[in-house]
């Protein structure tokens, strides 16, 4: 199946000349990534205003620095591997990811942290498995979608329901396992990404509508079954404009965000993260950005993500295979969507979900996985396969 996907491209019209220089979009992505990582390092508690950071703060800073280094190395290695490699390992990666998620749920294997089984504890470090599982799901879904498209023949793909299930099934299984941790936000993110990759890969609109109706019905039933969920949603929507009624962390988040004014208090000079804002360096780091860099800084960060998305999209077009294109778009989507959800939560547009801002939020798994994703994006979008194909022909 893997070979057919590659051959489809080789036989197709998508043959581009080898470019010695990396495209501007790749440079921009690398630059934005570096910028975000450095910003994250400056915002973690270790560089706060207190003249003498506590040992814990210093440790946090060092950890973030260590993971940034590890992630950069991982990304550099990933970027050098050919897309064929990723195509081949995608099923294995997916199986490993699902197995890991299943093991996490087994009683006795891990100790729940804050009531959730999301982490593998390996000595001094904890690994949030779903961060890596997400990447594996994207790669595997991209492979399946590309395969369906490839089997369609010259006059276009012909999706059938089994194709749809085959394409969406693995992703939804992984999503369900993440939801069971419980991590509703993380599971939803994986499900949405699976759907998006399938859609980009050619999932018929009729199937999408049917799935949408089914999903909508399930949602309505779930809401009707537990009236408090409905009340919670209504309450949250009301809080969009009446922040005084919002829950504590939402209020603190908005408070922090606006307290920077237009230009912010300056990097490291924020106060809200010193205990007022819960999870300031992870789930609400964008609020800290608002305080320390002001509205202008926050808008620049959002603009950075728009640039990240568009550069990713441009790079994807350069990917030589359908799998490569889908995987690159899926990964860029994963990072950007995660950022969007994080920002929306901070600005009280979405209910608190516990999703970090890629590259910037404190946390080794998030940082390493995000850097790995960037490495994949840069690697898959290069014409390495063509290069090797040429080599084989000669």
């Amino acid at each position: 199946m893997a070979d057919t996907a590659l051959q489809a491209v080789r036989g197709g019209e998508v043959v581009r000349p080898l470019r010695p220089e990396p495209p501007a979009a790749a440079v921009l992505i690398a630059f934005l990534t570096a910028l975000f990582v450095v910003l994250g390092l400056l915002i973690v508690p270790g560089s706060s205003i207190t003249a003498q950071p506590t040992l814990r703060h210093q440790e946090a800073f060092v950890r973030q620095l260590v993971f940034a280094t590890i992630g950069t190395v991982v990304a550099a290695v990933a970027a050098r591997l050919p897309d064929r490699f990723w195509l081949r390992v995608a099923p294995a990666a997916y199986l490993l990811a699902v197995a890991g998620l299943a093991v996490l749920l087994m009683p006795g294997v891990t100790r729940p942290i804050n009531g959730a089984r999301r982490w593998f504890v390996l000595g001094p470090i904890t690994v949030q498995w779903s961060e890596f599982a997400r990447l594996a799901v994207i790669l595997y879904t991209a492979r399946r979608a590309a395969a369906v498209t490839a089997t369609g023949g010259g006059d276009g793909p012909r999706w059938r329901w089994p194709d749809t299930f085959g394409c969406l099934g693995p992703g939804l299984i992984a999503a369900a396992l993440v939801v069971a941790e419980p991590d509703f936000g993380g599971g939803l993110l994986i499900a949405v990404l699976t759907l998006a990759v399938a859609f980009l890969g050619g999932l018929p609109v009729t199937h999408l509508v049917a799935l949408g109706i089914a999903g909508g019905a399930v949602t309505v039933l779930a809401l009707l079954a537990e009236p408090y969920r409905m009340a919670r949603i209504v309450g949250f929507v009301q809080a969009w404009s009446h922040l005084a009624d919002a829950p504590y962390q939402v209020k603190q988040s908005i408070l922090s965000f606006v307290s920077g004014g237009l230009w912010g208090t300056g990097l490291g000079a924020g106060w809200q993260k010193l205990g007022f804002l819960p999870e300031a360096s992870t789930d609400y780091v964008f609020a800290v950005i608002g305080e320390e860099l002001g509205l202008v800084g926050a808008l620049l960060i959002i603009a950075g993500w728009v640039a990240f998305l568009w550069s990713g999209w441009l790079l994807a077009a350069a990917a030589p295979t359908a799998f490569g294109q889908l995987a690159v778009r899926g990964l860029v989507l994963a990072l950007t969507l995660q950022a969007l959800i994080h920002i929306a939560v901070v600005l009280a547009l979405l209910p608190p979900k516990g999703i970090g801002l890629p590259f910037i939020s404190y946390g080794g798994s998030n940082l390493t996985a995000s850097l790995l994703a960037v490495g994949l994006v840069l690697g898959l979008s290069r014409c390495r396969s063509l290069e090797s194909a040429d080599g084989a022909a000669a």
Partner: protein
Amino acid sequence: MNRTRSWIVCSVLTAGLLVAAARACYVAVRVAPELFPAVSRQRGHRERIPAPLGDIVDRRGRLLATCTPVYSLYANPRALGQGDLERRLAPIAAILDVRPEDLAARIRRRSDRYFVWLKRRLSEQELAELSRLSLDPREFGFRREYQRIYPKGSLAAHVLGFRDVDLEPHGGIEQYFDRLLRGQPGSRYVYRDARGRPIHFDHRRRRDPVPGATVQLTIDAVIQQFAEDAVRNVVAQWQPRGGAVCLVMDPNTGELLALASWPTFDPNRPGAAPEDAWLNRAIGAIYEPGSTFKPFIAAAALNWGVVSPEDKIDCHGGVYRMGRRVLHSVHPHGILPFREVLIRSDNIGMAVIAERLGLEGVFRAVELFGFGQRTGVELPGEVPGKVLPFHLWNRYSLGSIPMGHEIGVTPIQLLRAFAALANGGYLLRPTLVRRVLAADGTVKLIHDRPEVLRRVVRSEVTEYLVQDVLRDVIEAPYGTGRRARLADYVLFGKTGTAQKPNPAGGGYMKGRHVSSFVAGGPLRAPEVVAYLLVDDPSGPGHHYGGEVAAPELARMLERTLRYLRVPPDRASRGKTAANVPAPPDESSARALLR
């Protein structure tokens, strides 16, 4: 197809980010103004650094009021939390000698605050023991405050006033010059984290406190002591039911050298004082002055030429009908020379002189000498006295007012008017303050020359009255103030014995008097005038001013003149009028200065 889908997904996500950007702007512009007060309150606050209070010193720089730093213990209820307070507070409670439950209750009442006092003004021992507990600085702390100290105890209490535990002034110079004495408190900006722990002091936003200014009084602590001794002596001897006042003034400058009012209090322990001790009777109480008022009417009459020193005044043998009223003299006299009307203090003679002045003339004389008007001395609570408006005066007034009845004056008004006689006819504004010096040495206020309100009478008149008439009130064997005669100094003065008006209204109370004596010395160039008033003496004898007040005031003046190193008027051979020999002044002065 593929391109379109790719474009759709990219657009949707871009739109999402744009919505987020719009939301960020909305939140920053619309929500920020509403939330900002909450943000700044949460972050930190300005903390006062108290300024040391200015000192109050006497005219020679002796310390009358100062302040010392003292530490007070506070707790941070936010940091302490709620759990198990009694057990954690037990060691503190043991040192402060209170019950742990009381401290815990105090903290629980303010559980949402960052600050609550546990004990103000710790003693040094308490501070030392508490320091040894090594309390968590997030939960407890000591704050440096200032405590007012009056090193000389109750001396000049009514001049000084006092301050409570929050250093709020009550009465006296403390209240009158509060703004200058307080200085400017400084402040520092303290940032706290969510649990109320101070995490940073912003030195750029620190303002250093400006210490309060030093107030130098005109009071001389030694003379003040003499005055208070005099008051104490008359109180011991005569058990006055109403109180007593002693005032000493430099007639040439209007500077008050002493002001004593009894009953008095210790400003270090204001709580222990009796209720009636707060009133400063020298400025805040009005009395009918009695015969001490006569010299002013006489001076006006001489000044305006309605009588002359050579005139003979018919005293009508002690009974004189004025309209429907019959006046009586204590000692009946026939025809007296003008001077003897005053020396013998004949009421009828005085009424006859007043008749020559006329009702309006008496009224003008009363106003001229400043009665019915606040003197403007630097003390809160001064009253203007009680002089009825002219249209309410009647024929009775002509008989009563010249002998110091039907008129209410404050002791300071009376002494000021008397000083005008002693200084050649200038009515001065009495003052208690020589200068106020800010901590940086700048002069905030200075009195380096007397403040003359007006010239009241010609100097020939005052010279005659003082040198001749008022001298013989004391020097003449028939003078009412003969008990004030001193061996070394020649004084001048006037006695006063006023019946107390019935507070129930109408008439006077029999056997209830205000006995007073106003005097000055030395005769040739008066340097000091003084007034002693005893309200309602209860001891044996006739409560004449010449008997109750004159000897004690004379002794006080003698000590004062000696202390001021005024050369004696005559070689010491005559007998001192005072019954008890004066204690050596130098030793008492030294005792005071310890």
